[in-house]
């Protein structure tokens, strides 16, 4: 579909509409100065490092512990969000009930609320004398200052990714699909798994993947509830900060390059995976 609208008609427009030179000039200047030039700073810092020194920095035990904490908590948050996000998208698309608009608006709260505000609020709520902490502590569940708290904060900031990716796909699903499944006599659970889920799968994986990437880089929401105990509840973003406070710019850059490479590789994988699905769904036209 895209290829057909791109090639010829656009060429023709180029002659008609004004502003090509101006918009190209401003866009390229902005992209080069704001987005690309700063990345050279990272390269400049890492240039002087030998491969062995680089490996030495990024495999330091305290740092490796932070990788495990960050990846583990982000994975738990992503799985929880996949289930919770699917439930929310389903309820918001399929059912009518009082307060639905309010619930829908509430889904964007984590994107709109500054991360530091989310961070201190969750830390206060789940600390031992907070509203939730008071309820959970007698049950033996410590959330604040443990990895559970880190996962909770990550899940909070990334839930909209899943809901907002699945919701439009579910909305566009024609009702004949349900009808066919129901007339064949399948019960709700089987019909959902066999008929609906295959259509939602690409969106659900994309949304969950985006939520996971966001969780890996999250800082403001996590550091207040994390407790930041070395080897236990330190996240990798915080390690960059720790290095900076020690004026170890090379160390900070090395860690940042690991974080950057991981998130770029994941986003690329999500894009490729999504592209493959879209081509398959749209047959030859995609």
């Amino acid at each position, binding site marked *: 579909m895209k290829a057909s609208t791109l090639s010829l008609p656009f060429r023709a427009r180029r002659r008609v509409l004004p502003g090509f030179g101006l918009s190209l000039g401003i866009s390229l200047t902005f992209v080069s100065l704001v*987005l690309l030039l700063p990345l050279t700073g990272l390269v400049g810092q890492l240039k002087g490092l030998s491969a062995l020194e680089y490996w030495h920095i990024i495999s330091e035990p305290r740092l490796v512990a932070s990788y495990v904490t960050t990846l583990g908590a982000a994975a738990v948050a992503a799985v929880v969000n996949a289930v919770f996000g699917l439930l929310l998208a389903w309820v918001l698309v399929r059912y009518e009930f009082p307060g639905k608009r309010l619930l829908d608006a509430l889904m964007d709260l984590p994107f709109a609320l500054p991360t530091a505000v989310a961070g201190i609020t969750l830390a206060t709520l789940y600390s031992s004398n907070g509203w939730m902490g008071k309820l959970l502590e007698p049950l033996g569940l410590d959330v604040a200052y443990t990895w559970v708290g880190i996962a909770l904060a990550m899940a909070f900031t990334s839930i909209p990714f899943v809901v907002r990716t699945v919701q439009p796909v579910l909305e566009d699903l024609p009702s004949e699909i349900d009808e066919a499944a129901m007339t064949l006599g399948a019960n*709700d659970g089987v019909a959902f798994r066999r008929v609906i889920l295959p259509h939602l799968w690409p969106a659900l994986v994309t949304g969950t993947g985006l939520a996971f990437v966001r969780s890996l880089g*999250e800082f403001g929401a996590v550091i207040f509830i994390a407790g930041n105990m070395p080897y236990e509840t330190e996240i990798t973003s915080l390690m960059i900060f720790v290095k900076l406070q020690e004026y170890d710019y090379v160390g900070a850059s090395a860690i940042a390059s690991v974080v950057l490479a991981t998130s*770029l590789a994941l986003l690329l994988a999500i894009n490729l995976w999504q592209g493959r699905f879209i081509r398959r769904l749209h047959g030859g036209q995609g």
Partner: protein
Amino acid sequence: MQRIGDAPALRRLLIGAAVVLSALFLLLPLVAIFAQAFAEGFATFVTNISDSYTLAAIGLTLFITVLTIPINLVFGVMLAWLVTRFAFPGRRLLQTLIDIPFAISPVVAGLVYLLLYGRNGWVGGWLDGHDVQLMFAWPGILMVTIFVTCPFVARELIPLMQAQGSREEEAAVTLGARGFTLFRRITLPNIRWALLYGVILTNARAVGEFGAVSVVSGAIRGQTNTLPLHVEQLYQDYNTVGAFASAALLALIALFTLAAKALLEWRATRLESSS
């Protein structure tokens, strides 16, 4: 017609679960912010808000936001115009590059700016020789804020302008419309709501950015402390009520953002059903 999940019991169960979980997970934190801010009464809240450091932080945050919005507005409109109205090699690449800020962790974003424009970086070192300091001062905060918020306007405009096509604009050009008149009279009325929403998102993020700003700010009280950094400092000082008073101001901006989105969406569906 019977659809999947329409059985009354299942329906009630799913709605109930969604509402209860959302209330606990999303609504409760929002309520807690205001409960904490007013925990010692309204008078204390006012005292906390009118504290001179808080006022300085509010002032700096407003200053940064007011400068960020027009810069990103011009860039967003230019980029959207470029990629939706012209074909040229590298068009797709440009659209991918604009998403860089979403892919980069805010701390890493702050760090790369610090490395380049800080005293040890090649640009920062040269500037330092000329007595210009960007990092640990407001220009640094402005630069990283522009970085983290620059995709919002373009992201809102591109799909809309792509869907609308350029027929009206071409007709206007044939009738003799030129340059800025064309944009103001033809394009702007079509995109103004998306533009407004892009600005609202830019505003929300610019006001609330924490990770990137905390790397480059230096957090000097009364000088380079933005409101989110001020919240952090008060919280670390065990002044919880004070921290939540400032946090409540930020939460109000978030609520305004959500309301604006709901309103613009409601308007769009009403227009769709009336036409």
